[in-house]
């Protein structure tokens, strides 16, 4: 029986065993539970990966709660050793699993054993290491694990080999557990561990793990970020050193009573990294340093804080809510949004500030609200966007998110001729109400988009979204270039969604265009010269960006188009049949100008008055006539 008042210095062998045990636990978690297990499961997953992660999480929470219930200081050494053994067995099961069922069993076992082990190990550490340098040893163990996992040989190993390494680590941990002799009071009686303060710490750690998991997922799944963060021996070596140094410094600071400052700094680092990643761009310089240092700082605190308390229930609550819950929420957020929103960082910051400001009563009262904001964010970000065509569905979601429907309708009035001619054909009411919800809109600050896929190519839409006024001078549409930044798939999804609108009505559109004739009044313009002037003005505004001022196909946008626009001065024109007389040529040209060429970047100008269309046709025809001698 341990005397609670006893505070002997721990034996060196016990310290070494404790550090090894912490290292082994973290190695198992980082290398296998967080990474290799998922990679092993991928070939069997068939889109069911969330179930696997769910099983892992459920197992982890259950294991944590079981450990808290059955924890006894008298059985500490044996319980830790058993935890390691169970972890090792679970890793072997995962390695041998050939079916999805077995993989799910393995995930559940990994969660159960790891949940058990972490709570048991941490809850008795103070009894082994004493209170004076607990932070340092926790930091050394944590930093060593991160450093080991960043060794190029380990980091770049196959998932199977990493699983073997994790199993071996579990074996070493089981051996080290035998040296964990209790020499000090197992629990500290400090204000930090009196309710409601532990709850505040749990909120703070929840915010940290949430951010870390989301950032980790994004880095892992964004090629430029992944290569910048984890590619190359020098980068990995730098990470290893950063991890180790940051963890040890964190441990020393924690021993001096700076727990809150350490996690505060970790939060600042992680938020900085998250915001850096937040817009999806690949501006990575410095992100890896912020990220690795932040991770090590809070990971050390995540061990040291419950270890200082020596309270199994607190440890279980911390690891269940902040550890397993935070991981699941962070991964869910990253999977669904592919970036970390600024508002989320703000909410996490609020929760964090409130949690660590518990000494001020008014701040304490805000705690539940802040936690609510975070959890609500989690619910949002855990939404699964299911669709037969995920990209188009995501594009539709982007259309809604950016508020496109406030300027663009998606409804064609069948009795309104201008609607049908400009944006048609008009589908049936049932077809127009098919979406969930229908995006009919009530304004047209821009054209109707219900059939935009049949009249605008993906290339044009992309250019237009990025730089609206370059392809549509005078447009009031905002630029959505930020949706096309590296790592951000919203822009391409939006283009895919627009392409899907009206993709089945192309034949009808082409037929309508072929039958269209300008109003008679459009031909009766007052004088040829005035007509050409009007056409020249419209050409300079609408056509010159692609075709060039002189119609030579050398406009400013030429370099950004997949296919160079034709030289309008030269013969022959590919899209104009031979053997037409002058009025027929003019009519064909007018149709091309009004309706464009489907499938190419040549967009129609459906909204122009017929007079303008005819003037443009006459000007283009004159352009060619003037150029003919040169050709």
């Amino acid at each position: 029986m341990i005397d609670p008042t006893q505070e002997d210095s721990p034996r060196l062998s016990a310290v070494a065993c404790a550090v090894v045990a912490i290292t082994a636990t973290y190695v198992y978690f980082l290398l296998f539970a967080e990474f290799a297990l998922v990679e092993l499961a991928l070939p069997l997953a068939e889109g069911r990966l969330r179930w696997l992660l769910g099983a892992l999480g459920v197992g982890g929470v259950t294991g944590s709660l079981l450990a808290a219930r059955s924890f006894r200081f008298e059985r500490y050494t044996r319980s830790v050793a058993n935890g390691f053994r169970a972890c090792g067995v679970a890793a072997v099961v995962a390695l041998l699993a050939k079916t999805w069922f077995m993989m799910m069993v393995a995930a559940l076992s990994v969660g159960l054993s790891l949940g058990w082990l972490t709570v048991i190990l941490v809850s008795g550490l103070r009894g082994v290491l004493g209170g004076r340098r607990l932070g340092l040893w926790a930091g050394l163990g944590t930093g060593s694990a991160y450093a080991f996992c960043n060794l190029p040989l380990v980091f770049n190993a196959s998932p199977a080999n990493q699983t073997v390494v994790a199993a071996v680590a579990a074996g070493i941990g089981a051996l080290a557990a035998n040296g964990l002799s209790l020499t000090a009071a197992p629990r500290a009686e400090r204000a930090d561990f009196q309710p409601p303060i532990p709850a505040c710490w749990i909120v703070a750690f929840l915010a940290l793990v949430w951010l870390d998991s989301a950032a980790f997922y994004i880095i892992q799944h964004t090629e430029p970020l992944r290569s910048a963060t984890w590619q190359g021996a020098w980068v990995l070596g730098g990470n290893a050193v950063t991890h180790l140094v940051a963890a040890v410094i964190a441990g020393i600071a924690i021993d001096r009573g700076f727990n809150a400052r350490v996690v505060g700094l970790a939060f600042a680092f992680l938020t900085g990294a998250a915001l850096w990643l937040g817009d999806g761009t690949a501006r990575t310089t410095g992100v890896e340093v912020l990220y690795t240092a932040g991770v090590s700082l809070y990971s050390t605190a995540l061990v040291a804080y419950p270890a200082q308390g020596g309270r199994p229930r607190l440890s279980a609550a911390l690891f269940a809510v902040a550890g397993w819950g935070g991981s699941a929420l962070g991964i869910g957020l990253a999977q669904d949004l592919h970036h970390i929103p600024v508002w989320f960082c703000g909410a996490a910051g609020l929760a964090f500030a409130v949690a660590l400001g518990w000494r001020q009563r008014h701040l304490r009262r805000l705690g539940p609200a802040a936690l609510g904001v975070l959890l609500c964010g989690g619910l949002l970000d855990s939404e699964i966007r299911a669709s037969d065509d995920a990209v188009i569905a995501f594009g539709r979601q982007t259309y809604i998110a950016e508020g496109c429907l406030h300027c663009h309708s998606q409804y064609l009035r069948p009795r309104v001729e201008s609607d049908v001619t400009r944006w048609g054909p008009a589908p049936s009411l049932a077809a127009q109400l098919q979406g969930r919800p229908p995006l009919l809109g009530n304004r047209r600050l821009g054209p109707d988009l219900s059939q935009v896929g049949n009249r605008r190519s993906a290339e044009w839409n992309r250019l237009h979204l990025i730089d609206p006024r370059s392809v549509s001078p005078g447009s009031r549409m905002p630029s959505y270039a930020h949706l096309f930044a590296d790592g951000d798939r919203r822009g391409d999804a939006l283009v895919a969604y627009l392409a899907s609108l009206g993709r089945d009505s192309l034949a009808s559109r082409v037929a309508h265009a072929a039958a269209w004739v300008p109003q008679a009044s459009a031909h009766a313009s007052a004088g040829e010269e005035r007509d050409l002037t009007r056409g020249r003005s419209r050409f300079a505004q609408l056509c010159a960006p692609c075709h060039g001022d002189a119609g030579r196909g050398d406009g400013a946008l030429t370099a950004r188009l997949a296919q160079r626009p034709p030289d309008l001065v030269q013969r022959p024109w590919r899209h104009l049949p031979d053997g037409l007389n002058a009025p027929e040529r003019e009519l064909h040209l007018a149709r091309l100008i009004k309706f464009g060429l489907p499938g190419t970047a040549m967009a129609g100008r459906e909204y122009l008055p017929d007079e303008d269309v005819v003037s443009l046709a006459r000007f283009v025809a004159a352009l060619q006539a003037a150029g003919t001698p040169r050709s």
Partner: protein
Amino acid sequence: MPTHPFTAPSAACTALTEVGRSTSRHAFAWLAIANAVGLLMALLLAWPGLNDLLAPLTYGRWTSVHLNGQLYGWCTVPLVGVVLRVFLDARHPHAARHGNIGLAAWSLALAAGSLSWLAGHSSGKLFMEWTGWMRPALPAAMLVLWTILAAHAWWRRPLRASAALTGRTLLAGSALAAILVVPVVFFWAAGSTVYPAVNPDSGGATGAALLGSTLGILTLYGALPVLLGRPRRAAGGWARAYGPRLYVAALVASWLLYAGLRHGAVSHHRLAPQAALGTLLVWIPLTWLHFEAYVWPMAVRRWLISAFICWTLLVVDGWLTFLPGFSEALKFTHGLVAHAHLAMAGFITAVNHVVLRCLSLSTGPDEAPIRAAGGAVRSMATPGFALWHAGLVLHFIALIGLFTVERSDASALFLGSAEVEGWLWLRAASGGVLLAASVIWLRNAFRP
């Protein structure tokens, strides 16, 4: 001594007045916020390059904040104040605090919703954009409010011991039950699979839906004089004596008419919805007669007159807007925005001022010195009144100007022209004027 369930004892008016003032602060704050966002949107239209500076918070995201801020903030908060006034037991020592909690819950939900829309989380349903984790936010605020109302109704219960008041008690209970339905229906209606019937020839609301929503407003606003505890005017003519009765009778008849209409996807080219909406014209004199039958503080009479002018214009142009030919010309254009502007900035704003002034008056609803109190408020509000109406008219002119341009040449709107530029900048300027007026009102609301 039992009291009227819809009025409070004048001795305990302080708490109700305090809640009324809080209502004004919340309402004017939302008006100022929504108008500030509206001004920003007008600037973004006039100067599209500004979007690049604000990306990803571009025009579309702000629009949700503007529209919902106007609807759930400025339009609705005064009505929240009214139900608080009706149900709060003013003798309760924490009545004012409870009222403030209800208002704060509402504003908090709307603020959270605004942040979510700015963050790009929207359902895609206009005016029903609450989605995902924000979908239950406003219903939750409504439930908080309902809990407060129910608790106070319960506390007032012993006062209603007499048999004569049993009916009123039942009325209060029925009202509470009806209010409880609102959050449930709201949550359901916000779902992505729920969508109202669509007029197949316009893509907009059907005649039945337009009639129903207008009758809903008439029912709600028609009850305002009673809910605000306005005393009836002394006999002075047939109209004053029978105005409210006529109003109720016409309301019943109109709801019966509404019930008899087809509620599916009916075109505005059909005669039935055209005629049904045409019956709204009778509400121009009826509303005047109804409101004239009550005594109003001097300060709100100018707002009542403004409301009636806007109401008259709205009913007439609303009906015309629905008719074939007019509908085709106006739908999706600035012309329809002008109609909405007249409704929100004109009619609703004027009614809200009437409500807020009545809620904030420190005298009891049945007491005499109402003119004096009203006079004080009037002198305080004059610059705001003038500014607001100047902005209202200018904005209306700008919208009609844009409508005429886009009617004659849609490309002028899509591709820009000097004329369009001019109207857009006028619109922005008028938005600035409207914002200035709302800031004045907000500042006044915070004055002791």
